[in-house]
């Protein structure tokens, strides 16, 4: 999908929890903190250490919003239905 599509979607979803899957197949769950012309920056919702065999390679070594995900690498982006009481 066109780059502009994910840019405007990320703008619209700023402050929301999303799951992004990239073309390489990595999965990122986090809250959209910021978006610029080329990247979207997430506050991760999972700890950096591996949980149940999952590995979020991109988070390794990057605290907080990290290095961001290139908008061009996004394959799918969906809102996460989180539940709070």
């Amino acid at each position, binding site marked *: 999908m066109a780059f502009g599509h994910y840019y405007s979607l990320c703008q*619209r*979803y700023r*402050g*929301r*929890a999303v799951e992004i899957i990239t073309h390489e197949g990595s999965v990122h769950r986090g*809250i959209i*903190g910021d978006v610029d012309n080329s990247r979207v920056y997430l*506050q*991760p*919702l*999972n*700890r*950096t250490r591996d*949980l149940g065999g999952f590995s979020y390679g991109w988070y390794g070594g990057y*605290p*907080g919003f990290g290095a961001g995900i290139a908008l061009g690498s996004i394959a799918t982006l*969906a*809102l*996460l*239905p*989180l*539940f*709070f*009481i």
Partner: protein
Amino acid sequence: MNYSYLDCLSLFGVGGAHPGGLKLTKTILSREYIDQEKSILDVGCGTGQTSAYIAKKYRCSVTSLDNNPTMLKKATQRFSSLQLPIKVIDGSVEKMPHFDGLFDFILSESVTSFTDVSLTLQEFKRVLKPNGVLLAIEIVLEESLSEEELKTLVDFYGISRLLTVSDWRNLFQKAGFKQISINKYKQPLDDNDIDTSTDFSLSGNIDEKLLEILEKHEHLTKTYKDKLGYYIFRCC
């Protein structure tokens, strides 16, 4: 530092931290007659998402109360950036200021459960007008749990105890509410549009320990999915 579930909500700045989110809030309010003359108290207002919605939509008098400094700050920021004339009160629902008979509606969105319920309901009755309405969305114990399971939930969420529907009904009656209508909230299956998705106002860098709490919460939610329910109570 040891964080609690409520710390987690405040540092993540979870807006609409109750089952159903803002969408359910809108539905519940749409069933009431609310004009500009009405006065509404939003207890445990959190980041102020609901209060802001009410003030914009109904243009009535809105008072928002919370006792968490982080939440109060986030709510105040939200209201001033939207230029909404909402009164923000730093206080506890168990012992409110001298608001006797002031409000037409009180909204408690998963707030009363986290307090001493009897005390809080007495306070609600006191600050409501004689025909005032309490609208509450609260957690309910649907099936009996072992002592150990109950302790896990009560300790994690920091609630005094889990109440069944009939416990809630009795407590409402004891506090002087005469008409009590009770509806179960059914979580929609395709719960992923922007109106139901949670809005976050993050406090700077998030400590890994908060992520741990979030994970535990997700785990408990899944484990007790069929044993805990969420109900909408309308009392007057």
